[in-house]
């Protein structure tokens, strides 16, 4: 899209390459040891169970994809219903379905041909996390994201990630088993996400990712039952955006490692809100369902326009501006 725009505006071939580089550069981000061409990633669990699908998201404008959270063994997840729409978002309890890390290596290979892949993993203890992360590194992941926050899988996710001590010990176990950056994805179902963030930082995380879904439930009045087979689920989408922005703002104020913002982003303005709150990069989940993969391109173009209207030369210049 960007190169197309420039081709039209500057028909002279000689200028093309340089301008192209400048335009790309404006959305480029560097954080920790990573460099991404675009600041928006695909969030874990959304269309990232297969290699081709992940590749599609990168081609649609994602700066990277985060894989579905992967465990040691194949897992079918919860029985249907695992998902339902609600006002302002979705409630889901997929139950961490995944083919297991061995088989997932093949999907990674396909995705990596398109661009950077962050490997998301879940386990029930520090050792599982360490083993899975090492495998993700072998598969070529540019970073590993620890799912310490899924609110609806017994014995995993938020059940272990609500306790700062666990967060710290899992992160540091993983840290000593891989060389790639380790990110901790935090739960908002806590009285202090900042404490969880500090624990992750202390454990050696290179970034924290906030937020995962909010604990939620949907009941059918006529059928007198919780709709999801797991009864409980997690709320995502525009409904949770103000909660995510607040979490990022708080974390940015308390930590010195970068924060990745996620929760309800569906257009450039939402993305800008997260960046200004202090996110160094962001992820898009539910909006890929409502708007389709083209949401990445739309956000990229919108951000570029906003940046030139408001005189930001790079994404980094936007990060945390609303905190000043």
């Amino acid at each position, binding site marked *: 899209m960007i190169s197309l725009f420039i081709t039209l505006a500057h028909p002279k071939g000689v200028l093309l390459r340089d301008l192209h580089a400048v335009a790309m550069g404006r959305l480029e981000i560097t954080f920790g040891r990573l460099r991404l061409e675009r600041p928006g990633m695909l969030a874990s669990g959304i269309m990232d169970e297969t290699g081709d699908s992940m590749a599609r998201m990168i081609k649609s404008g994602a700066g990277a994809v985060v894989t579905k959270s992967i465990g040691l063994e194949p897992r079918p997840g919860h029985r249907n219903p695992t998902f339902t729409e609600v006002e302002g978002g979705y409630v889901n309890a997929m139950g961490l379905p995944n083919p297991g890390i061995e088989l997932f290596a093949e999907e990674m290979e396909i995705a990596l041909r398109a661009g950077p892949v962050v490997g998301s993993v879940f386990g029930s203890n520090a050792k599982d996390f360490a083993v899975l992360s090492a495998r993700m590194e072998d598969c070529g992941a540019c970073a590993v994201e620890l799912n310490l926050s899924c609110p609806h899988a017994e014995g995993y996710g938020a059940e272990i990630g609500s306790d700062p001590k666990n967060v710290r010990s899992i992160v540091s176990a993983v840290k000593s088993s891989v060389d790639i950056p380790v990110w901790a994805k935090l739960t908002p179902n806590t009285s202090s996400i900042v404490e969880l963030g500090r624990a992750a930082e202390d454990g050696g995380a290179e970034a924290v990712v906030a937020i995962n879904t909010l604990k939620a439930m949907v009941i059918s009045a006529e*059928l007198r039952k919780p709709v999801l087979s797991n009864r409980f689920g997690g709320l995502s989408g525009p409904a949770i955006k103000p909660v995510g922005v607040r979490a990022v703002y708080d974390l940015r104020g308390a930590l010195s490692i970068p924060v990745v913002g996620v929760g309800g982003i569906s257009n450039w303005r939402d993305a800008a809100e997260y960046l200004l709150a202090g996110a160094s990069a962001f992820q898009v989940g539910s909006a890929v369902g409502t708007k389709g993969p083209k949401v990445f391109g739309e956000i990229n173009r919108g951000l570029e326009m906003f940046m030139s209207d408001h005189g930001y030369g790079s994404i980094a210049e936007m990060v945390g501006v609303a905190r000043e």
Partner: protein
Amino acid sequence: MLHVSETVKIIGKMRESKDTYTLEFKWDAPAVPGQFVMVWIPGVDEVPMSLSRIGKIKAITVKGIGEASNAINDLQVGDYVRLRGPYGNGFSIKKSKKVLAVAGGVGVAALIPAIKETGCDTIIGARCEGEIILDDVARKYSKSVWTSTDDGSRGFHGNAVQLAKKKMALRDYDLVIGCGPEVMLYFLHEACKENDVECQLSLERFMKCGAGVCGCCMMDRLRVCKDGPVFGTEELDGLSDFGTRKRDECGRIVDLR
């Protein structure tokens, strides 16, 4: 994202064959031919079903093959059922086109709304006479409705694709629409290519969200629930999974043949 789920009351139930029923309900969600809904049976499962009627009164036509589909067929008039949808892209048919609909088994359910809108020629194939369904409905809208059975108990003796080939040779169709078992659709696509006729086929994969979010229903890079379930000639050509591979609930590859 609003109004995407609704609890409706069953207002009509018709037996179509030994194991297949049509359930009717009032629901004024807008829908196009070829779209489907996710149907919840509390305590059992939630499964995708095509809409076999798409007006203010809508319907699903369900073949009982396992726990969920049989539970749906146990519903009675007056019972409530929670639906999500309508989902998917549906058929996209230009008015001017000369269309042939080719159905295998209960797949005819997904084609009825398109047959109604276009009045197109229709082939309904099944294993035996008792499994030919909705031919009476198709006849209301279409002058030419042909049947085929594997055992020759009714209409053409052979499968629907063989019959379709014959019809394509006789008449100049612009477009073939189809729904049925994947192997059948695979050969239907081949037949269309041979005859240089465009086709749009409705495919199936295991579905969880139905809404293009979870990524469990992928065929290559496309979501059957959102980018499909109806795919056109070119998309089908590009789908290496078509007729060859699907994924199980864990996301593992399973070979179809």
